[in-house]
């Protein structure tokens, strides 16, 4: 019970801090002081207090997009075990986990197409294409975990880091592939530039171009929740057994999540966005990494 409450508190309150850490890392690389760490919280509060303007060509689908995005991110977060315990887990929940993201993505794409603008349509087409290529990488990685732990429940898969030594090589490949999937799913460089709404970098930022006010705040919050969930998955694979002390376990997990945020900031500062025609190559490379992880396990 206490573990569930702590999980919910951290899950609902920490994600904007990850965005703040990413921005601070990028500022440090640029020799600037940068935004405060808590700036995303201030942004969310500011957006919540604004009014909304809805386009005359949109319907309920447009209003449902941000709602479904946040809801699916919250539900996926309930399925991911953080510090060894997930509030909600059952056999086969890894499939629900992957398809909650797909549901959120579907409604975001539908809301983007609902506006009738060519900008949002183009971003929606690119998002659909890149997600179609990134999903096999995610599934192959989850398959490796399922093969090692012989179960289809996320809590059993990531239970306390009891990895057999023969699986170490596969897990290294899976961590690399899942990091690329994390960058793709959360629209980070090298797939998308989260700072701009320009035609050059139009994938996720342009799909939400017509949202404003609380809806846009929901979109930002949902994006940060998604970042948290995928980072928690990555951290669950990478960290060893943390021991029974909950303070140490939670402290280690939060530190590891912030380290993942710093790593994302480093990647964003060190490289530019890939040319659009080269993005599928990187996603297929992630698929191949996870597929090799399965091949290494097949004995």
């Amino acid at each position: 019970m206490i573990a569930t409450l702590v999980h919910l508190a951290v899950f609902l309150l920490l994600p904007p801090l990850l965005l703040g850490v990413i921005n601070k890392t990028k500022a440090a690389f640029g020799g600037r002081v940068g935004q405060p760490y808590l700036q995303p919280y201030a942004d969310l509060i500011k957006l919540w207090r604004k009014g909304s303007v809805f386009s005359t060509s949109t319907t309920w689908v447009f209003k449902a997009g941000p709602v479904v995005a946040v809801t699916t991110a919250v539900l996926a977060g309930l399925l991911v075990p953080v510090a060894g315990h997930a509030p909600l887990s059952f056999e086969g929940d890894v499939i629900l986990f992957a398809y909650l993201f797909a549901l959120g993505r579907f409604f975001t794409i539908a809301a983007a197409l609902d506006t009738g603008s060519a900008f949002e349509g183009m971003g929606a087409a690119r998002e659909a294409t890149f997600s179609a290529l990134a999903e096999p990488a995610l599934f192959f990685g989850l398959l490796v975990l399922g093969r090692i732990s012989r179960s289809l429940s996320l809590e059993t898969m990531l239970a306390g880091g009891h990895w057999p030594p023969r699986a170490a090589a596969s897990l290294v490949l899976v961590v690399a592939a899942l990091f690329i999937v994390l960058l793709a799913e959360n629209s980070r460089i090298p797939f998308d530039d989260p700072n701009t709404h320009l035609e050059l970098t139009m994938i996720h930022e342009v799909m939400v171009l017509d949202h404003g006010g609380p809806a846009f705040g929901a979109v930002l919050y949902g994006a940060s929740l998604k970042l948290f969930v995928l980072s928690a998955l990555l951290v669950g694979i990478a960290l060893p057994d943390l021991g029974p002390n909950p303070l140490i376990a939670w402290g280690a997990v939060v530190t590891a999540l912030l380290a993942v945020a710093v790593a994302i900031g480093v990647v964003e500062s060190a490289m530019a966005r890939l040319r659009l025609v080269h993005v599928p190559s990187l996603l297929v490379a992630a698929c191949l990494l996870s597929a090799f992880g399965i091949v290494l396990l097949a004995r």
Partner: protein
Amino acid sequence: AGAALAFRVRRAGAAPTWDCGYAAPTARMQYTSSSFAQMLVGMFAFALRPEEHAPGVAGAFPAPAAYHGSVPDVVLDRIVAPALRAAGRAFESLRFIQRGDVQAYLTYILLTLVLFLVWT
């Protein structure tokens, strides 16, 4: 009171979709389903085999040109239907068996019975 203030119902305004200042869009400039699928179709063109007719423009004063593209169903239109047509043509040559008069069919039954008697 704080919750009521935070979740109060606010009137929402209405405005046209932002079109980047372009004053006169037409229906021909819209983003259709073909546009939506164009990236994926291009990526998997080796499997989907789209058909495109793009005569292109040539010369200093080119004639009006039109582009037409379609993605026929790979399995149905390119594999199953031609295979069934070829099978139909092959079996045409056996049409002569269906003569229409009862004596021929009785002869077929007699021949089949003789065949089974000899065989077993």
